[in-house]
Every structure is written in structure tokens, then in C-alpha cells.
């Protein structure tokens, strides 16, 4: 079974802030990490490979340093990695990103299963997985929380819904996006770490994936960010004072009208 896992390098979202003076992202102290959901996608791929044989290829579109997450993925069980990197990709929104990744996946030929994380924690959009599936003409299932059964022909999974879950079967080739409940990712093995150090990671450019320039990066992105700003706090608070009983009494006084 040939499996592709799409992995994004993201800034650790909890550290990202706007500098109040310049209104730009403050970069100090922000680490780049593997998108947490993609770690679970990778784990699922490695587990399936262990059951059915085949290869796990991890692929990332990003700047040269995105190679770091690909090496980490190799350490955690992926067989090979591809970096899709070109200045022409800069500024891509999810439309252009899914185009680029789909083009890159096409260069691999026979792929049975493509796995993505549910969403990337920098944008939280959850749009790239379905976008890739659309471009490759694959049936897809989002928010998979469990693999119930798999064979070399098809997979049966649970898809998280707002009010429970659906049990769904889909034949290969297919694309799935996964949530964190699906598995517990393993830690990198020593052997994996050794391999990750040595492995050669080929870089694919826009030409290598035969991409149309007008579909790439900022030019290919239908959405445009007009401005970014910090969320505002509300300004109407009352802090009570006194003993606990006094404070509680004031609160109940205020709330009375609402019950």
C-alpha cells in the first residue's frame, strides 16, 4: 500500500502574538513545529504500512527549512520524503496550496491513500485536504477518528460528526483527514533518528511538478488578507470587593434580573 502523508511546518500557535506597536507578528520565541494533527496522520500511515506493507512518503510544501519536519517524520517511521519548495509558492492560500500539493502527489504515480491532518494550527482552515481530493478526483472523508478495518482494497473508518459519528467505507485510492483521537503517535526510534540524519530529501520546484505559474503562490490565491489585528477585550467589567459573602451577594443582586 502506497501512502502519502501531507505534513506542514507551522509556528507553535500558542506563542504567536501581534506586536502591539507595529501590528506585525512577533517572531521572537516562536518555534516551528510539525502540525500536531499531521503527526497523527503520519502515525496512522505507518500503522497501515505495518499491516499491509508498502511505503509511506511524507510531503511538505514550504520554505527550505520545512525539511526539518520531514526529517522528523522519517524518524517517526516514514520511508521517504519530498520537499516541494519554490519562491513561486510564496503567499499561497489553501486553493493554491492544494493545487501545488496535488501536482506534487501526481508525480509519485501509484498512490493508494493520501492522509492529511484535519487542519493546520496556524490557519485552522481544514481546507487543504478536501482541496487535494477534489483536484486528484479522489473520494475523501474528513475528521476520521478511528480506523475500524482496512484491507489492500478499502478502508472502513469512523468520521466524527457534530452529534456522533458515521461509519464509512471507501475504496482506494482515497484521501482521509484525521483528528487527534485516531491514535497515539509513537516517539522516534533510535534507528529512525539515524535514518533521518542521513536521508536525502529531494526538492521539487514549480517546474518539477509541471505547475501552471498562474495557479501558484499569491497569484493563484483567490483569497487575500487585507489586515490583521489583535482581538479586543470587553471594557465593561465590574470587580466586586469585600468578603466572599459580600461579593457573592453583590453578584446575585446583579444576576437576579436574568433568572
Amino acid at each position, binding site marked *: 500500500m502506497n501512502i502519502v502523508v501531507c505534513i506542514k511546518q507551522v509556528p507553535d*500557535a500558542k506563542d*504567536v*502574538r*501581534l506586536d502591539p506597536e507595529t501590528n*506585525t*507578528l512577533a*517572531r521572537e520565541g516562536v518555534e516551528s513545529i510539525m502540525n500536531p494533527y499531521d503527526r497523527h496522520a503520519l502515525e496512522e500511515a505507518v500503522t497501515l504500512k505495518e499491516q499491509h506493507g508498502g511505503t509511506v512518503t511524507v510531503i511538505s510544501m514550504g*520554505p*527550505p*527549512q520545512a525539511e526539518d519536519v520531514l526529517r522528523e517524520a522519517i524518524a517517526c517511521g516514514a520511508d521517504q520524503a519530498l520537499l516541494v*519548495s519554490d*519562491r513561486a509558492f510564496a*503567499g499561497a492560500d*489553501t*486553493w493554491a496550496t492544494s493545487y501545488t500539493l496535488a501536482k506534487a502527489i501526481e508525480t509519485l504515480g501509484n498512490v493508494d491513500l493520501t492522509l492529511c491532518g484535519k487542519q493546520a*494550527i496556524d490557519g*485552522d*482552515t*481544514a481546507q487543504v485536504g478536501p*482541496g487535494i*481530493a*477534489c483536484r486528484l478526483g479522489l*473520494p475523501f472523508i474528513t475528521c476520521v477518528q478511528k480506523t475500524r478495518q482496512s484491507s489492500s482494497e478499502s478502508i472502513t473508518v469512523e*468520521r*466524527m*460528526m*457534530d452529534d*456522533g*459519528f*458515521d*461509519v*464509512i467505507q*471507501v475504496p482506494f485510492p482515497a484521501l482521509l483527514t484525521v483528528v487527534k483521537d485516531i491514535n497515539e503517535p509513537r516517539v522516534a526510534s533510535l534507528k529512525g533518528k539515524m535514518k533521518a540524519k542521513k536521508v536525502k530529501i529531494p526538492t521539487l520546484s514549480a517546474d518539477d511538478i509541471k505547475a501552471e505559474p*498562474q495557479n501558484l503562490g*499569491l*497569484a493563484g*490565491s*483567490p*483569497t*487575500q*488578507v*487585507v*489586515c*490583521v*489585528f*489583535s*482581538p479586543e477585550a470587553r471594557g*465593561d*467589567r*465590574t*470587580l466586586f470587593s469585600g468578603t*466572599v459573602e459580600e*461579593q*457573592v451577594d453583590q*453578584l*446575585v443582586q*446583579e*444576576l437576579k434580573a*436574568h*433568572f
Partner: protein
Amino acid sequence: MLKIDCDKCIVCGICESTCPFDAIHVEEDCVVVNDNCTLCGACVDNCEVEALSIEVADKKVQDDFADWAGVMVFGECRHGAIAPVTYELLGVGRKLADTRGVALSVVLLGKNIAGYSDSLIAGGADYVYLAEHDGLEQFREDVYGHVLEGIIRGKKPEIVLAGATAIGRSVIPFVATLIDAGLTADCTRLEIRESDGMLLQTRPAFGGNIMATIVCPDTRPQMATVRPKVMAALEFDGSRVGSVESIDVQPNAVSSKIEILETVVSDQEQVNIQEVETLVAGGRGLDSAKGFELIRELADELGAAVAASRAAVDAGWIPYPHQVGQTGKTVNPKVYIACGISGAIQHAVGMQSADIVVAINRDPNAPIFDFATYGIVGDLYDVIPALIKRIQEVKSES
């Protein structure tokens, strides 16, 4: 590409210090950009001598751009009921349509759905499009996607809104890709830009630490998803008039490779924290699963439901459906009582639109107080029992 005009550059270094990606560096008499550049534009905005600009290769312009008009809502029904988010979308959709002077429509896919038309019109729709077919009874991404694609191509709305629900977040990105439209996920604010009638779509990014406003200048429709409970539904108005049209669904449109074997409705607590007027929420400050017993006691006293921060959910004290915030649910109750919750922005984005927020926290500097209407600084294990006692007294007085 980032264009650098070295004649203008005064090597002041502002761009280097404002670049979030470490992509631009000062050299001897100019700056150079490296492959980390994401064209985010921070340097361009901050360059005082206008030495930087972003050059975009020619964009494709959609040929029939001008033909698209009207606002369309993707309505959802599951298990025999319209999802409340549909009415919320009609609420915001109505405002957008009125501002643009265009019609508001809603599309519904499913089986036996004709009975919903009246309430959709009462909820604000001018047109109801019903795609009825046995094959649409269950939600399947590809089938819903292709049917919706057909309707959008046929009706050509300039704006398409959908719920950021499990269904919406799955099928809408697929549809947007099929029709090459821009899509913005999880919008918290939607408005029309006066200068050019463009849809301004505002959404949180980076787990809520930052808000971004997005436009789709060159493609139609402009597509957006909105989380449940973010927008307000209109008052039902039975006197509103609208028309209903059924959409022909071809048999081949409902064939799919996906097979739904079973649908399981969660038997976990049925209380939906998005549907109640009062919520009592607990966080890490409770210190243990037992703390939720106290929270529940207060909730019962107020006829409220129980919510939680992610820290409490991650600790296993309460299941995920109770989680409020960026990765949990957005709630919009009348009263939200946060107990032992620090008020991290990822939590706050899910509850800050509550009419009244009460914060109980022993740390006077906890950020939750910035979101609070009323705050009590104290140990929740003192405050909550006192509060319960006082509420009981007041109840027995009246």
C-alpha cells in the same frame, strides 16, 4: 515576488525586525530576501521609504465575474431537523443581501425536506431551493459537493455562506475547489465593504491570537463558513414571502464511492452547550474531576449546563463535547460563569460573545477578568458554595 528598490532603500533595518519569518536581511547598501518569504507583506507595510513592494504575476480574471449576484446560504438538516446554524446564516445573509440590494436564497439537500420551506422563508430567505432525492438522505461529501456545485453554477450567487459544522467544513472546501472560488473558514464577522461591495471576512487565526480580514477580489462566488452561535438568527416572521423551487437531481449525481454503513448518534450527555441560556464552566483551577461535582451543583441551581476549558477536558475530567473555545465549541449564552479558568485567548474566542460573563478566579491578574462583566477574586471552593447558598436563600425569599 517581493520587489526591492535598492535606490530607495536606506538600510534602516525595520523590515528585518518586523519580518515574522526571518526572510529579509540588511546587507551593505540594500536588503536581500531569502526563500523563507511568504509574501505576508509585513515589511511592505512597515517600510518608511516605500522601497518594498509585492509584484504578482498576472491573475486570471474570471470571465463572467459580473454575472454573479445574490447571497446563498447552504442549509443543513440532519435527523429530521434544520440545524440552528442555518437560521443564523440567514440572519447575517439577510443583512448582507439588503446592503447589496440583492436576494437571499437558501439551498437544502435531503429527503422529505419540502416541509421546511415555510420556516426558512420566515427565517429570512427570499428563495428556497430544494434538492430532494433518496440519495441525499445521508451526507456524503462527493454527492453533496457535486449537487451543490451544480446549483451554484446555475444560480450564480456572489456570496455563498455555510455553517462551519462537521458537514460544512468537509464539503464546502471541496465545492470551492470545484468552482475555483476563494473560501474563508470560521468567519466571526461578515460585512460589505462600502467602496466596492466586496465581502469582508474576518476570522481568528493562530488559535485566536490574531484576527485577520480577508477578501476575494477576483473570483465569484465569495465563500465563507461561519461557526454555529456566532451570528444571530432573525425573529421568525410568518408574514415574510418567498418562493420555493425544486432542483432536479440527476441519478448519476448521487452515485458515490463512499458507503455509509452506520450512523451513530452520540449517547453521551445530550445537553448541547450551544443551546442553553446559562453555562457554568470549569477549568484547571478545579484541580480534579471531583471539582465538576461542585460545578454541576451550581449549574443545577441555575438551570444551567456545564462547560469546560480544554485543560479540564485534556485532564480527562469531562468529555470533549463540553469544551468551549477555538478547538471546542463557540457558545453564546446569556450568562457564562467561568470558574478556575485563566481565560487564554483560545478559550475566550469561544465564549466572549456571552451577554454576561462572570469570572471566579483566585488570581486577580488572570486574563479572564478582561473578558468578564463581573469578577470575583477568590478561591472557587469558597466562592461557589457561598454562591449556591445565597441563590437558595434568594429563591426561598421569593
